[in-house]
């Protein structure tokens, strides 16, 4: 191949090559800017803008008298921007914050994604620490003080089951569209009122849209939507009553529910043992969590709603009402109790071995005669008892808006056939009529039942918020006088010398009530005699349901003590304490309003 001599022609070739080069560049520009332009425009926008959610201040929870139960406390956090922080300052910083320097350098080096994402070094700085840092700010470039808000539960364990606590969004909740507007690390209500009224309390989080640079630094605020504070909530709880209730349960396991009979408002809701929601509210440590969940007496269980036990003799009220309504007995009908009732080859004992003698309804309730109700129950049949128990709200949820409520169980013939595939035995009716056997109820159901007896027979849904329109779930249609007969007898239980609930007798108000003792199956035969000698796990469960004052009830409550022994001795004094605390407080309030007027 002969290389041509003349230069100019080669220069023309070079020119063509240059033209081809330009065409390639233009085609590439066309591809990037015209064909893929939209896509790249979108990427550049998401590069540039950062949306920051600003959490709204959470609503405050008050008790029924306007006493705040929670507060939002701002606190200071020492944070470091690793990209601006001088590593040689770690030692000095460790001295100020009293944290090992390895911990600080460890925290700083973990976050690799962006050197301008702040790393929290120490939360809840003391005032002294904040002032030292502020004074020496220029010595520590990249060290900043951030402000966060913690949810503090002023009364700690008191009312914890009702008030609840906040916790981090769980992985499941992150998927839930309801929470999609919240920042990923948001705390939301995870228990109690905090959970079930979270939407009300939460408010609407605001938004800040920043223009950021590649290092993630905020350059300019483009748009701001301020957060809207969450609504405050006034609970129906009376914190003084609640405190007294929990104090009465010290060392005991059990529950107490106090209701306002005319509205269904919950005045007190005790589940013992309780827990400290402050440990949860700002992120619980793993050690604390396992310590709480592994405790044998399960503090996280809301016993007021979730424990179901045989109601024992408190159930005799249902049997009595059913018998009065069905015309099986009247106030004069007498039964003879010699300490036991024979049925076939079985013996059914009265708790009083030597028997009550000849008793009418009033005496049977006051002295809690078992044989009287064995007899009446036998005549009624289980399906009639079932009917009346259901009317009084037993065996079904009360509908309270705090989760995890259990239904309890009221048996009938159909139920037994369906679940046990066996016919109903009369012996089962006999023990059911005194609230043993298959019958089981929750403390809150018993409080609702007690309320209905004092308010003329209306079942209200228990509510935890004050001032809401009462929600009647049903009005029980009874013969005139039936409830008066029962109330009169219940007053006798406490007031009369032979009453089983004398321990609840108060000097300041009249109290009516009914004791109950739920047998722990299989214990009776082994341990007879003095109940104190029986090991705790075989001891009976103690019930007491009560109302006060006698003339016109303002408070109805149920007390349940696990393995508390006899209802009259363990549960009744608790009811008395709580009722007295409530009445004294009311009297004081009325007095002070009188003075103001």
């Amino acid at each position: 191949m002969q290389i041509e001599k003349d230069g100019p022609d080669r220069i023309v070739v070079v020119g063509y090559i240059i033209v081809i080069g330009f065409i390639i560049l233009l085609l590439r520009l066309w591809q990037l800017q015209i064909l893929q332009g939209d896509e790249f425009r979108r990427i550049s926008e998401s590069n540039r803008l950062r949306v920051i959610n600003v959490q709204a201040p959470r609503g405050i929870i008050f008790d029924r008298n306007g006493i705040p139960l929670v507060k939002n406390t701002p606190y200071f956090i020492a944070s470091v921007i690793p990209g601006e922080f001088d590593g040689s300052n770690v030692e000095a910083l460790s001295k100020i914050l009293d944290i090992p320097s390895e911990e600080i350098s460890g925290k700083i080096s973990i976050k690799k994604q962006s050197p301008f994402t702040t790393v929290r070094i120490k939360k809840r700085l003391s005032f002294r620490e904040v002032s030292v840092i502020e004074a020496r700010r220029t010595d520590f470039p990249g060290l900043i003080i951030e402000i966060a808000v913690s949810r503090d539960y002023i009364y700690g364990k008191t009312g914890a089951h009702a008030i609840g606590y906040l916790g981090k969004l769980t992985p499941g909740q992150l998927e839930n569209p309801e929470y999609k507007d919240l920042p990923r690390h948001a705390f939301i209500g995870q228990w109690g009122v905090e959970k079930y009224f979270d939407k009300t309390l939460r408010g609407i989080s605001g938004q800040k849209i920043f223009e950021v640079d590649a290092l993630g630094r905020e350059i300019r605020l483009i748009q701001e939507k301020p957060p809207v504070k969450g609504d405050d909530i006034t609970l129906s709880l009376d914190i003084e009553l609640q405190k007294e209730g929990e104090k009465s349960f010290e060392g005991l396991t059990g529950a107490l529910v106090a209701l306002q009979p005319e509205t269904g408002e919950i005045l007190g809701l005790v589940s013992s043992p309780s827990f400290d929601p402050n440990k949860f509210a700002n992120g619980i440590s793993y050690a604390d969590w396992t310590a709480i969940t592994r405790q044998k007496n399960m503090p996280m269980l809301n016993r007021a709603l979730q424990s179901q036990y045989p109601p024992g003799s408190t159930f005799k009220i249902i049997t009595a009402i059913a018998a009065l309504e069905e015309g099986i007995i009247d106030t004069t009908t007498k039964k003879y109790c010699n300490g036991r009732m024979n049925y076939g080859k079985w013996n059914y004992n009265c708790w009083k071995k030597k028997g009550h003698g000849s008793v009418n309804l009033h005496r049977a309730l006051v002295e809690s005669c078992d044989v009287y109700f064995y007899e009446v129950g036998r005549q009624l049949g289980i399906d009639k008892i079932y009917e009346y128990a259901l009317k009084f709200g037993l065996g079904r949820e009360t509908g309270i808006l705090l989760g995890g409520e259990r239904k309890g169980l009221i048996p009938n013939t159909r139920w037994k056939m369906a679940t046990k595939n066996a016919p109903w035995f009369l012996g089962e009716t006999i023990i059911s009529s005194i609230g043993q056997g298959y019958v089981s109820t929750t403390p809150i159901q018993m409080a609702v039942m007690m309320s209905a007896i004092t308010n003329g027979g209306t079942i209200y849904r228990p509510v935890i918020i004050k001032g809401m329109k009462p929600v009647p779930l049903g009005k029980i249609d009874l013969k005139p006088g039936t409830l008066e007969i029962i109330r009169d007898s219940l007053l006798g239980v406490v007031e009369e010398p032979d009453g089983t609930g004398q321990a609840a007798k108060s000097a300041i108000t009249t109290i009516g009530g009914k004791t109950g003792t739920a047998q722990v199956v299989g214990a009776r035969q082994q341990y007879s005699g003095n109940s104190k000698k029986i090991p705790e796990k075989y001891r009976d469960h103690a019930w007491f349901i009560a109302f006060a004052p006698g003339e016109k009830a303002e408070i109805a409550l149920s007390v349940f003590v696990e393995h508390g022994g006899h209802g009259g001795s363990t549960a009744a004094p608790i009811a008395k304490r709580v009722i007295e605390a409530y009445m004294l407080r009311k009297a004081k309030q009325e007095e002070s309003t009188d003075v103001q007027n």
Partner: protein
Amino acid sequence: MFRIDRTLIRNFDWLIFFTVIAISLIGILTIFSATRQPMESTQSPFYIKQIIWLLLGVLGLIVFVSFDYIWLSRISVPMYIAGLIFLLIVLISGKTGMGAQRWIGVGPISFQPSEFFKLIFIIMISRHFSSVQEPIGIMSLLRIFFVFVFLPFMLLVKQPDLGTGLVIIIIFIALSLTRGLQKKALILTVIIGFVSMPFLGNLMWERLEDYQKSRLIAFVEPGVDPSGIGYHIKQSKVAIGSGEFSGKGFLKGTQGPFRFLPEKHTDFIFAVFAEEWGFIGSLFLLSLYFLLIMRGLDTARKAKDDFGKILALGITFMFSIYFFVNVGMTLGIMPVVGIPLPFFSYGGTALLSNYISLGVLINIRTRRFALFY
């Protein structure tokens, strides 16, 4: 030697001059936009410095138009030796920037000798190519290669300034091919080229700094390091692509000022421009460069002697290589070799040396008539 008269002004290549001035002014606006970020703390803004360097550049251009370019051939040997000495000084006591020693300080100013060396190199090669018979034989080629290419190449690679090193090799090859090689020399060049490629590649790889290695890796495998060099290429494509047809508008670009783009006012400035001015603006800017390069080739064709022809060609090649590699890099179709966009990127020494080179080019065109004097 220095004479500016009416003939000179009449024959002065105003077209190429104003084309390049236009490029530089657009460049200054783009530097202003790219570095406008308020958080940036600079003593005096980049665009002000660039304006000062532009004025110096125009002054340099006038100086290098005013004398007959034949003088460049006459003083080429001492210039070349001085150039080599400067490169050595850089190696011994240079300032480090971006992991490479390229700068030497003269009083308050620091400059990059390698920027000026390119022009000296082209002058030297032109002188020798114009003195040997064409087509060039094997022996002349090897001699020129070893004395004038290999030696400075090794000095440049040692700095390390791989970009400039490669540019002088490419200019040498392009000039040889355009000049014309004997059949044997051509075949030998091709064979040696192919045989030595892996060897040279390996040798160079060993000598590369980490940042240079990562650039090459990122070009071959952009997915390997998304926040390293591959990230740069990606952000550059995002900037250019997001300009779409008509651009986001002047001072409306975000990729550059918000630091998503690296080297936003130097190597990646084309991306900043394309983001704000879109396809239309890019088309206009590329047209200016097209005009510059075509005019350069035309100057080579019309030069009155071989020295002028080869010199004009060499300078045009230099502009072209820088232009194509830089724009190709921002578009993601060339590896990231840290070289600026001529007349446009921020950088004082480069701007001055480019204006001086342009001055030489205009000089050749102005004196294209043999009977000028």
